[in-house]
């Protein structure tokens, strides 16, 4: 799409060059150019310039529409207590994406907890546990420099897997309530692989306590940022237009 727009822009500029060149030739042939011809040239020139400005703007807008997805990656341990019905995750940040400045990962923590609210055993193939957050924040993320990065409340949290398997997944949504990264994670999405559990997914799995490992991420809201490739294209276009403008002034 961007290449198409660039092509149109270049074509418009070539047309503009041609009309300037033709006008110069007419001027060289006629000492006093025809007023109608002058008016026609200015009309054409204005239209071409307007045309290129519109497409330049479209390219600029297109360049700024690239999306970045701020992400926190984490690894840690998961445990479920059948007596309290509470699922707890204690983990550390292993990487981040599209978050600036990058938080200190060493010594960081990403912890969350939620309470079992229902178990869906309607299928003999898989089991789904539905969890809900408690009062106050359900999730906290603190970096290695003790900066409060993110606090939030779950709006949904589900643990599901195929019956008979010791691995499955946790998915959830959260509302960010506080922390320096709150603006990145207004409505965050959590997805994690749960593995190496000392139980397997089954209809009665939540009747007993279990532990395991977890590996996942929290994705924030997509943020519009210029993509490097498109930025280069935009820069190229701006330089090109600057050269054209300089060239036009010399005519």
């Amino acid at each position: 799409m961007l290449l198409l727009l660039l092509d149109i822009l270049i074509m418009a500029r070539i047309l503009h060059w041609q009309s300037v060149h033709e006008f110069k030739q007419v001027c060289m042939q006629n000492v006093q150019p025809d007023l109608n011809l002058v008016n026609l040239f200015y009309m054409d020139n204005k239209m071409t310039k307007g045309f290129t400005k519109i497409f330049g703007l479209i390219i600029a807008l297109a360049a700024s529409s690239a999306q970045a997805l701020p992400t926190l990656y984490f690894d840690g341990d998961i445990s479920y207590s059948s007596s309290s019905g509470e699922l707890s995750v204690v983990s550390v940040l292993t990487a981040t994406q599209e978050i600036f400045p990058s938080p200190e990962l060493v010594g960081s923590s990403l912890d969350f907890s939620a309470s079992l609210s229902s178990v869906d055993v309607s299928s003999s193939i898989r089991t789904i546990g539905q969890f809900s957050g408690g009062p106050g924040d359900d999730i906290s993320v603190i970096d290695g420099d003790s900066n409060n990065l993110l606090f939030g409340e779950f709006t949904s949290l589900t643990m599901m897997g195929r019956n008979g398997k010791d691995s499955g997944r946790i998915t959830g949504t959260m509302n960010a309530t506080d922390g320096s990264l709150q603006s990145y994670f207004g409505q965050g999405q959590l997805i994690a692989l749960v593995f190496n559990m000392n139980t397997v997914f089954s209809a009665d799995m939540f009747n007993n306590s279990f532990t395991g490992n977890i590996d996942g991420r929290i994705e924030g809201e997509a943020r519009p940022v210029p993509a490097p490739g498109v930025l280069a294209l935009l820069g190229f276009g701006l330089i090109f237009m600057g050269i054209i403008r300089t060239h036009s002034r010399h005519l």
Partner: protein
Amino acid sequence: MNIRQDIKRLLLATVLLAPGLVHAAVTLPALDIQDMGSDVGADVTSTTFTLEATAFAIVFDDSNLNIDIADETVTFTSNSGSYDSAADSGFGYGTFGGTFSIGSLLGGTFSGLEVFGYGNDIDYDFESDLAFNSGSLMGSYTSGRIEGLISGDIVEAKLGKVAVVPVPAAAWLFGTGLIGLVGVARRKA
């Protein structure tokens, strides 16, 4: 009488051995694999399984020991197998064989990669035992295991050593088997 006792012993021995055979898991330390940056992610079709992601860390039981490694591209490419999106009461299931590589770290083959679909053509779980045949991480290990999830463009996976561990139901069998063995021994005495 002796034949009956031998049969009992044989059955009990079978029960005792069974727990160790029913359940395999990835153990830590393991390679942390996720889709990052420009990774293609995973694609499951009726005849192919492909995955492109990044291995970026080795994770340990103690999270404080996690080691960042230089990013290595992970690829899994099937050359046999199939997937049925409605194999099991609306849930998909398939198995694939093929080759994999993790940059210069590991390379090898997989023959029984199981793919379990949640029926929406977006969410899948997958797992497979792996046979290593190259790579700097291979060392004395010639086999391993990968377990992971796919959710649209997202890939989360762990690749590590394979562990055979008893599951609770099998552990129960193990316990009753032991009690039975003690009972037989006492009767014999």
